[in-house]
């Protein structure tokens, strides 16, 4: 990964705090993600990792702090705005559209790239038709990329877990995001599936130059993939730096060994 050029900051999180009622989920977190890097967020369960992603793509609205994405600073934005600005994500517990086929799930990811109005679609003529076909091809490229041709027209609900995770990645890729948030993409996978998924993540990063923010528990994976690692623990920012630095950090080690917090 050393040969890729990581330049400007694409996303800067500044002093974000989020709480539900009395429960403080994130406590003044600040970090940044540089364009083209793979940025991991790790930490024990309940550390606020997923909440951090939810804040980034506008699903949770922090009480304090601001987020600067591609130069635009705001405290909060509606999820679909985040999406339209180029932030896509996958979910910790698979959130596919169960009633639809693999292809339709990925096509739904194309939503923001499609424009034609209701009437043309009802008649299924002209632009609506061509738009549909063009985007089908894009979707097919993703299917090819993720090597899921065999399940193209199968309803996702019935697919094995590992494949569902792949389809979900495909749906996110379909949006051609600049920043891709992956929430435990390898949770519950066997080593072989993890191997494939890592491969895909690297390829996405190198082939499309997509910036990736990754939540993952498997340390070896994190250390292999990441350019930089952010460590959260019970809403607090524990460490931030290069993989080997983080691995060496005493607080981190304690946190993972479960040293009680004062």
């Amino acid at each position, binding site marked *: 990964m050393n040969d890729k050029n990581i330049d400007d900051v694409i996303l800067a999180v500044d002093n974000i705090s989020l709480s539900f009622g009395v429960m403080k989920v994130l406590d003044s977190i600040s970090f940044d993600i540089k364009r083209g890097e793979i940025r991991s967020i790790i930490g024990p369960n309940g550390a606020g990792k997923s909440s951090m992603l939810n804040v980034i793509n506008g699903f949770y609205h922090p009480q304090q702090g601001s987020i600067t994405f591609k130069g635009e600073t705001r405290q909060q934005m509606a999820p679909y705005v985040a999406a339209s600005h180029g932030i896509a994500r996958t979910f910790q517990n698979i959130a596919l559209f169960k*009633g639809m086929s693999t292809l339709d799930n990925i096509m739904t990811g194309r939503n923001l790239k499609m424009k034609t109005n209701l009437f043309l679609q009802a*008649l299924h003529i002209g632009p609506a038709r061509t738009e549909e076909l063009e985007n089908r091809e894009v979707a097919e490229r993703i299917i090819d990329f993720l090597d899921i041709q065999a399940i193209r027209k199968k309803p996702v609900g019935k697919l094995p877990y590992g494949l569902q995770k792949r389809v979900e990645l495909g749906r996110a890729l379909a949006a051609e995001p600049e920043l891709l948030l992956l929430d435990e993409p390898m949770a519950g996978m066997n080593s072989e599936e993890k191997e494939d998924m890592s491969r895909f993540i690297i390829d996405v990063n190198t082939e499309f130059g997509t910036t990736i923010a990754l939540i993952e528990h498997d340390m070896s994976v994190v250390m292999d993939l990441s350019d930089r690692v952010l460590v959260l623990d019970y809403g607090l920012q524990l460490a931030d730096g290069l993989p080997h630095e983080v691995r060496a950090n005493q607080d981190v080690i304690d946190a993972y060994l479960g040293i009680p917090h004062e």
Partner: protein
Amino acid sequence: MIYRETGQFKTNYSDDQALFPIAQDRYVILAVLFITFVLVPVFINEYWLNAILLPFLIYALAALGLNILTGYCGQLSLGTGGFMAVGAFSIYKLMVAVPELGFIPLVIISGLITAAVGTLFGLPSLRIKGFYLAVATLAAQFFLIWLFNKVGWFFNYNATGMITSPPMTLFGVMITGPEGVPAAKYLLVASFVAVFALFAKNIARGRIGRNWMAIRDMDIAAELIGVRPLLAKLSAFAVSSFYIGMAGALYFSVWLGSAEPTEAFDINQSFLVLFMIIIGGLGSVLGSLLGAAFLVMMPILLKNILVGGFGTNSALAAHIEIMTVGALIIIFLIVEPHGLARLWRIVKEKLRLWPFPY
């Protein structure tokens, strides 16, 4: 078993995404269209028209509408009767005011008016979900009916409070009221259903349809990949109400000829249509038609068996009928909660894989 798919390969996306990619299906559809538009009109008569065909077709149209909202977009609505009323009263006012526009445009305009009203009542869906929303839609039901009952302007201040469709012709053929020509009425309504079924299918398989289903299946995920709940839900309400409005317009002008809001559009209409899509199959165009057919024919069948068969007195027969309908619905929900459409899909799959089981 009937299917012979070997060698049916697609060399471009438009073939692959065609409505009926399998040749055998296309033949079936052609046959159905032939029967619908050529054979039936030849043999049609008043009884069949008014007892079976018109109700079936008109409810099918309404069911299509509701299925778009509830089946595809997952928003439960109990306001169907009210929205049908909007369609009916719109076309009534229009037929009186601007008959020169011609019948078909009037039906469409009525649909559009209903769409507007529907969108309005769809607004709460942005804040509330599930049964809360369902109950909220009842507000529409009761408010609208009350409105058409109380506000004289809607029924042109006539004493009875009834509305009666003025005679209207299409290509010189009478298509409203009792002296309407059966074949003409039938063809008119059948065409509406055919055309708008096609449109529904097209929308459902396109971007907007996918967004609806996304909202239905996992609204949060949908929002996070850029589907705007506001647009998706309101568009569903609009399109749905548009269909239901047209159904209401035809229901009143072509089938009933005259209507009285509290009778013709009461809450049971809402339930009836809801039953149609549940039994037919949520999220399926075919299901809407099957469901309508089923629920239109079943009571007639029952009545004929009871009154005709056992000579039960009609009052008792009515009670038994409603009981049986209820029971059948429960049984049906137990046996196949995904409806007739699902049954058909299973059968089709079996036929495609015959003799293999999977």
